[in-house]
Each structure stands twice: as C-alpha cells, then as structure tokens.
C-alpha cells in the first residue's frame, strides 16, 4: 500500500497544492537515481501501453516488437509542511515517447535534463522538446565516476545552449546535490517568468 500524502489532510482536499518537475535524459543517465535520492517514497513506476501514434514510428518488425508495447514512467514525491506536494517525473527522452511528454509538461514547474558527458547526444531530443514546448529547463550533468569532467562552458557549446540556460554539475546519488539541482531549476524558472512578464509589459503597456 502506497502512503497517500493527503491521508492526514481534510477530506475536501481544498488546502492542498501539487506541483511537478520533470526529469529527462537518455537511457541510463540516472533519472530514477536522481528521483530516488530526494523522494520520500521509492520511485514508483506506472506503465502505459504505446498508442498507435507512437507505434507507427517504431520499428516493430520481428521479435523485438513485444518489448516496445509499454513505456514506463517513474515518479517520486516530496511532501512539504506547507501542504504542498511536489512530484518528480522521470521518463525516457526518446522522440517516440513525446505523446507522454505533452501530458507531463502541461503545468510543470520546469524540467531537469540530465546529461552524461560520455553520451552528450542522448539529451538532444529532450532539449529539443522543451525548447519547442516553451518548458523552462536546466542541464544537470551527472558526474559519473570515471567519466571525463568538462567545464560547464564546454558542455554549453556541445549542447549548443544559449547563455541563459543554467548548467549544474551533480551527483544523482547525493540528496544535497539533487536538492541543489532542483533549487537551481526553480530559481531559474522564477527569473525567466519575471523577465517574460517584464518584456510583455514593455510590449503591451
């Protein structure tokens, strides 16, 4: 039985707030590890059968077809004393899962795109998606043992990111490090929202 964070709350639920942050990145980059480091529950997994839309772009020929019929989404949760519950969603960043991303991105605070310096290209798809969708995101470089270390400047060039997108080095296994990533994201989102409001006020006095 999963503990429901609202069990202690009023039955009408009127006092509760919920928010979500997305954790994206290539396969094996540490999304579930990151979520698990800070979540109050072991990351839970829900599975979704792939819809026709997504199956269409998959190569479902032959024996591998079976393995592409569901996609997993991991999520974790942090409940705060302010009656806010923050959900962290980690899901695969490949293009064929974008039908799920649309669902996840609506109303999200923002996204953390995890990068592994050994396979930087794995996070291109996620970056593309969030840029097109207008979802604010930051890059969290998961510093794997033995992986080459690069300066954020080099990573910015490799990912062709604008100067405004924060790049944070992290260890997905360390709670404090993950906390720092999430704080950086929220601060960045608050500053972009302020800036865009200032810009629109300028354009439409």
């Amino acid at each position, binding site marked *: 039985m999963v503990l429901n964070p*609202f069990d202690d709350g009023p039955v009408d639920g009127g006092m509760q707030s919920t928010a979500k942050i997305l954790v994206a990145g290539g396969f094996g980059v540490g999304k579930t590890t990151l979520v698990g480091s800070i979540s109050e529950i072991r990351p839970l997994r*829900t599975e979704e059968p792939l819809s026709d839309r997504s199956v269409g772009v998959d190569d479902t020929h032959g024996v591998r077809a079976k393995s592409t019929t569901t996609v997993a989404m991991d999520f974790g949760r942090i409940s705060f004393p302010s009656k806010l519950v923050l959900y962290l969603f980690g899901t695969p960043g490949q293009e064929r899962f974008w039908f799920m991303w649309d669902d996840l991105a609506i109303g999200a605070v923002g996204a953390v795109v995890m990068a592994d310096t050994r396979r930087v290209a794995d996070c291109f798809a996620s970056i593309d998606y969030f840029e097109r969708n207008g979802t604010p995101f930051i890059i969290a470089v998961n510093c794997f043992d033995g992986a080459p270390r690069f300066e954020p400047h080099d990573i910015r060039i490799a990912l062709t990111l604008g100067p405004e997108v924060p790049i944070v080095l992290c260890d997905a296994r360390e709670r404090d490090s993950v906390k720092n990533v999430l704080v950086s994201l929220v601060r960045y989102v*608050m500053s972009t*929202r302020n800036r865009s409001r200032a810009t629109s006020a300028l354009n439409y006095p």
Partner: protein
Amino acid sequence: MNSRDGDAERWLDREAGPVVRPYAVTKGRTLPSGGAWFGLIDIVVQTGERTSQDFRLGPEHRWILSLCRRPITVVDLTSEVDLPVGVVRVLLGDLSDAGMVRIIPAQEEPEPDQRLLRMVLDGLESL
C-alpha cells in the same frame, strides 16, 4: 471474465498479473467520457454520492472509488491500482459523470504562478 461478478476483483490483484488486456476494463474506450480531463497531479476525491440505477460499477470502479475516500492525486491512484493511466482516466471519467468523484485541478493555468513557485522553492530549500 465477467466484470459484473463481485468475485472478479480477486483475479486482478498484483500477484495474478493482468488477466485481461488493459483497455478491456474500459470496454475499449481510450478517452474519458463527458470531456473531463484528469491531469497527473490533479486531486480526485469521492463526493459520497451513491451510484445511480443506470450506472453499473465494475470492480475497478469500486476499487478506484474506495481509494478516493481521501483526496488522492491521479498519479498516486494509478500506481496504486497498477493500471495504465489512460485506463484510470476513463474509469475516473465514468465516476465523475455519475457524480461520485470530484476533480480538484492542480492549477487552472498552463504555467505555475509565482506563488506556487515560491512555495516549491521554500519547500526545497528547507530540506
């Protein structure tokens, strides 16, 4: 499997694994009726309304309903019943149509407002 059979519930526990293909429990429907939308972090809760004559609750409806006795998010509910979120949405749509559950949307706007962002930031910093 006869979904109206009260005993059917025990065939659908986690240990047994899926007995029927996921969307069979929604009779093939993939979208909730009545145009209701259930976001992943929207909260659902029982209204206490009794079932009407023309709406027959399946075992999955009952199960979901029992979990909504206290407010619960759609995603927590989904992981609890171990059904795909699409299936849970259809079943919640049925319950909402029948007036048996109520949705408390996470946020009306597509983007979180500054107040919510501030709450998230304060919460994270206090960890």
